[in-house]
């Protein structure tokens, strides 16, 4: 079981060995045994103790009725047979009527409480799972196919839900019934009881065997379904490319292969479930025949009364039914467990954690007497400064308008990082950004720029070296405080379904409407928002498809402005914005950067020219640093980059 490759996040494909994202170095999740999954599911149900007590109580009551009633029926029949008279029949029937009514009431209580309990449990499980997913490290998402993850959150939780409701109640009542009926049978006649019990081992053996097969096959089916889900998602989101390349036919064929695979696996799983009941019926009927036979023989020999024989006939049915019921429901529970195992795989994945004793950034920074003049106080090599920014920190530190109280002093001290062991993406990165300074990062694609800012946001843990914010090692600060103090505008700006206003407010949840609109104005998003049919209350679709890419970017800039962080991180934020708006945005950005430390992955010359420090990255190393002027004069890598952008492809172009 443990060899199963699909237990890893994703679906068994290993992403590239190079590149920026997607490599996973996450530990392989250990598969669990059914018993552990069951125990943990039970733990969930156990959280609803009061309801559970009600369910158990009501089940006890209704099971008791089911057990006692046949006995009274037997007692009512016996005198009929022996004497042909009905002396106590009226009384027996009155008693039974009362019992049945009580039983029905108990059953209603049980089902009502059960529905409440199972739905509460499901709600809790969905909540836990969703909350857990929020805390998973990005490495998980890099490696996992989103479709498969989705399938776990939807299909698998659903399967667990199906197994949680009625089956659990049935298991309970069936178990109780078995013991009750057993007691009744023993009290009536031991020999007949043994005859009835003779069939038990066969039933149990078959049940356990088939249940095991069923669970394995169901798990395989759920996996196949997850894979297909991932495949479908990939192709439908890339349908433009499929169409552009006329590849509809090939894609259909490829789908058809996967579909056939799923069909086979699903067929086997369904067959297992289908075989179960007939097998149980067979055993059941054989048992029934045996009991009829034995009852006939014994009563013919007058060792038991005919009434007892008749009662045992009823009991054998009644006894077999819960046994069969248990096995049957156990089967449903098995497929639920298969789902639960996949859910628990996510639950057990290590989350992003704070170091032991971590405290908020600002709190720790406040404990430091003054800002370090350079990194040396922390034992870090003094990072070279940009020419103009070499003034003391206190001079540059603008009175921060940000609520956190952080100055925004950022130091990278000998930071190295690799996604895949042995393939360094960043090597020995050291630099310092004084409060309010702008650091521009330039370099070719794949030189590690995105990774660099990802480390500052603690999307990934630094492997060697330190990153200090206001003198505090961010790996010792709480994750929350690190991210709350960063304003990040990512390459692909993501919007959520909701109004425009809600999307901007995502930056700071307690912002007033005025603040939201102010941020939008600063980001030059206000005009197009007002042109939308409902202005700030216009609904955006899930993927923001009713906005252009540039507009989406503007909204995410507004979001960052609203967040008013101490440190601003822009990843090519301007690259998609149209040329007209770009000028305006650059001005807004300058405004925003004022008094705020900014790390910018720059593609624009104007950004670079205004930067206090330019870092030129090449294959994960800083190869040059300085201001625009300094770097141009030195005539190195940067100068080459700069000139190449200016020179047209060939001279006749103009």
């Amino acid at each position, binding site marked *: 079981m443990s060899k199963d490759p699909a237990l890893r996040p994703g679906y068994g494909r290993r992403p590239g060995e190079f590149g920026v994202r997607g490599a996973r170095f996450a530990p392989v999740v250990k598969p669990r045994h059914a018993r552990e999954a069951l125990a943990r599911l039970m733990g969930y149900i156990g959280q609803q103790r009061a309801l559970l007590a009600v369910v158990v109580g009501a089940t006890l009551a209704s099971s008791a009725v089911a057990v006692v009633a046949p006995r009274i029926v037997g007692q009512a029949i016996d005198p009929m047979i022996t004497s042909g008279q009905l002396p106590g029949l009226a009384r027996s029937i009155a008693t039974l009527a009362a019992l049945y009514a009580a039983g029905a009431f108990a059953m209603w209580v049980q*089902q009502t409480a059960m529905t409440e309990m199972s739905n509460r449990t499901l709600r809790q499980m969905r909540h836990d799972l969703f909350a857990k997913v929020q805390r998973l490290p990005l490495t998980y998402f890099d490696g996992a196919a989103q479709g498969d993850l989705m399938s776990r959150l939807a299909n698998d939780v659903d399967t667990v839900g199906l197994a949680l409701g009625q089956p659990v109640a049935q298991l309970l009542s069936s178990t109780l019934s078995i013991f009750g009926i057993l007691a009744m049978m023993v009290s009536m006649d031991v020999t007949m009881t043994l005859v009835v019990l003779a069939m038990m081992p066969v039933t149990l053996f078959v049940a356990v065997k088939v249940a095991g097969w069923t669970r394995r096959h169901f798990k395989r089916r759920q996996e196949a379904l997850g894979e297909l889900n991932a495949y479908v998602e990939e192709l439908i989101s890339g349908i433009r490319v499929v169409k552009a390349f006329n590849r509809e036919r090939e894609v259909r064929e490829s789908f058809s292969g996967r579909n056939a695979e799923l069909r086979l696996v699903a067929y086997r799983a369904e067959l297992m479930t289908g075989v179960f009941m007939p097998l149980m019926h067979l055993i059941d009927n054989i048992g029934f025949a045996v009991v009829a036979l034995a009852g006939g023989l014994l009563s013919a020999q007058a060792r038991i009364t005919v009434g007892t024989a008749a009662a045992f006939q009823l009991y054998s049915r009644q006894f077999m039914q819960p046994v069969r019921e248990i096995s049957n429901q156990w089967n449903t529970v098995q497929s639920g467990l298969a789902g639960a195992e996949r859910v628990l795989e996510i639950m057990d994945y290590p989350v992003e954690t704070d170091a032991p004793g971590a405290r908020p950034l600002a709190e720790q920074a406040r404990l430091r007497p003054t800002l370090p003049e350079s990194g040396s106080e922390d034992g870090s090599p003094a990072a070279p400064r940009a020419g103009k920014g070499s003034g003391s920190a206190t001079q540059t530190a603008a009175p921060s308008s940000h609520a956190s109280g952080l100055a925004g002093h950022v130091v990278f001290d000998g930071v190295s990082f690799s996604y895949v062991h042995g393939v360094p993406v960043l090597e020995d990165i050291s630099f310092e950004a004084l409060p309010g300074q702008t650091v521009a990062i330039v370099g070719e694609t794949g030189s590690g720029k995105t990774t660099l800012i990802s480390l500052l946001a603690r999307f990934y843990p630094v492997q060697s070296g330190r990153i200090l914010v206001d003198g505090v090692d961010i790996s010792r600060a709480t994750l929350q405080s690190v991210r709350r103090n960063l304003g990040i505008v990512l390459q692909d700006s993501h919007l959520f379904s909701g109004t425009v206003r809600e999307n901007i407010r995502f930056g700071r949840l307690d912002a007033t409407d005025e603040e939201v609109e102010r941020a939008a104005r600063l980001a030059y998003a206000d005009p197009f928002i007002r042109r939308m049919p409902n202005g700030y209350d216009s609904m955006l679709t899930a993927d923001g498809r009713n906005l252009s890419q540039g507009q989406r970017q503007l909204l995410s800039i507004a979001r960052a402005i609203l967040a008013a962080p101490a440190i601003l991180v822009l990843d090519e934020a301007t690259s998609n914005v149209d040329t007209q708006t770009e000028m305006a945005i650059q001005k807004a950005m300058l405004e925003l950067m004022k008094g705020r430390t900014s790390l910018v992955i720059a593609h624009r010359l104007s950004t670079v020219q205004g930067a206090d420090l330019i870092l030129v990255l090449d294959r994960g190393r800083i190869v040059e640093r300085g201001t625009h002027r300094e770097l141009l004069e030195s005539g190195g890598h940067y100068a080459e980059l700069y000139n190449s952008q200016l020179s047209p492809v060939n001279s006749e172009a103009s």
Partner: protein
Amino acid sequence: MKRVFAYMRPHLLFFLIAPALKAVEAVAGLLQPKIMTTTIDIGVVTGNMDVIWSNGLRMLAVALVGIAGGLGASVFAARSSQGFGADLRQAVFDKVMSLSLADVDRFSTGSLITRITSDIVQLEHTAIMMQRIMVRAPLLAIGAVIMTLSISVELGLLLLAISGILLVVVGFIMSKAFPLFTQVQQRLDTVNSVVQENLSGMRTVKAYDRGSYEVSRFDAINDLLFRTSVRAGRTMAFSGPTVSLGMNMATLIVLWRGGQLVAGRELAIGQVVAVTQYIAQVLFSLSMLGFLLINLVRARASALRVSEVLEAQPTVVDQPDADPVLRVTRGEVEFRDVDFRYPGAAGPPTLSGISLRVPQGHTLGILGGTSSGKSTLVSLIPRFYDVTAGEVLVDGINVRRYPLANLRAGVSIVLQDTVLFSGTIEDNLRWGAGPDAARQELVAAAEVAQAAHFIQASADGLNTIIGQRGAGLSGGQRQRVSIARSLLRKAPILILDDATSALDFRTELNLRRALRRHAKGTTTIIIAQRVASVMDADEIIILEDGRIAARGTHGELLRTCPSYRQLCQLQLGVKFGEGAAANE
């Protein structure tokens, strides 16, 4: 709905055999109490051992026939339902692939995925349930009533009456529960779409540390689902006890009346016992009904969603008058008074009055503001969408006259949102090249696209495996692979829709130089954010609100268009004098 059931037709034989075999199983079950009656009445009461033995064997034989029926039914049920599901899944997927982009946009990717997977699984499940229960449960009930009638008409009629009453009561409860379960299904959909959205925006959520906000958003919807589910469950909770109470009361009446009949020697005691067991069977069948209902509700919702896709008609299809052998040869592109509006969109049209001509081998640069219609304009060339008015011509022939496949084979487009598929880099490149292309060809294209360097630098070269959506590659690497993929098609028309936005200056420059050498004679359309990307084009157009605001070469625009001049200053960081055509 009909469309969905049509996919059952090839499996109809198996689909019907299954319940027939189930019926055999049910009949076997019905016979057992009947045989037992004689065991008790003749065998036990008179002490006739022969009867007891032969009846025992008979019951055994009947049981064996029963299991044969049961097992056979399972095989046929699993086969037909999975076959039905697989066929339906293939059909829906094929349909989605044949839909026009406007239709796919309308459904949204997430909902299409749910329809292809979860919804169809639900239908398969219901198909199996129906085969197992639909025939067997009523059969058991009717059989039980008939058997009872054959024992005693009076008791049989009594059972019939009570079953009838219960059926009405259960029916009433169901009619209350039905809409509630439909609502549960809708809530479940909402929960799923919130999850989907959250997963795709995970980076943003993390960047703003909004995990707990997202959780509270999720909780609100989760809670709604919970409350609706509980309401539905509570309604259903009435049906089980009602049925069981009714049937138990029936047992009592049978005992009472049966007792009198036995006393009057009209009925044997064994017959009364058998009748009580038939009552139990009716009880069992009725309680199955509720089980089936929940499934039917879900299945109905699923079937509706699936058939919605199956019924969708692709809007962009081969025209009846399309010339089947027409191909793009030269690569000349022309727009004549083109207007375009997205289907169902309000407000002003996305494009209006667009007229332009790109002769063979020329390069057109397109600059323009946010949502000025740049991407829309080029997506009209391979007919991703059809124009609202005017015409688009390729090689002087309206694009609608081409068979879609031939038209698209002649237009190579690199999209703004880079899409790579999981597989090796080579697999991805072969999307453009076809399976027979030599490896050298792939390498050559990668070289032009400036992708050869990093591909070679990786340990597995072209065999490097990339994850979904190109995971494992950086944005710039993805763009370059997708450019190489498009180059391999060697189409007469090449469109780069902001396809170099993640490349740095130098890589982009090298790319442009290489393209110029490689793609000589190819008609090229470049949409860009940077002036530098298009300034050497034969013509540049500037789009504003779906109209062409200015056009000309770089030099002409510098002279005539103030906003272009300003743009150049902004991006190139150089002052241009009035009328100066070149950079300093």
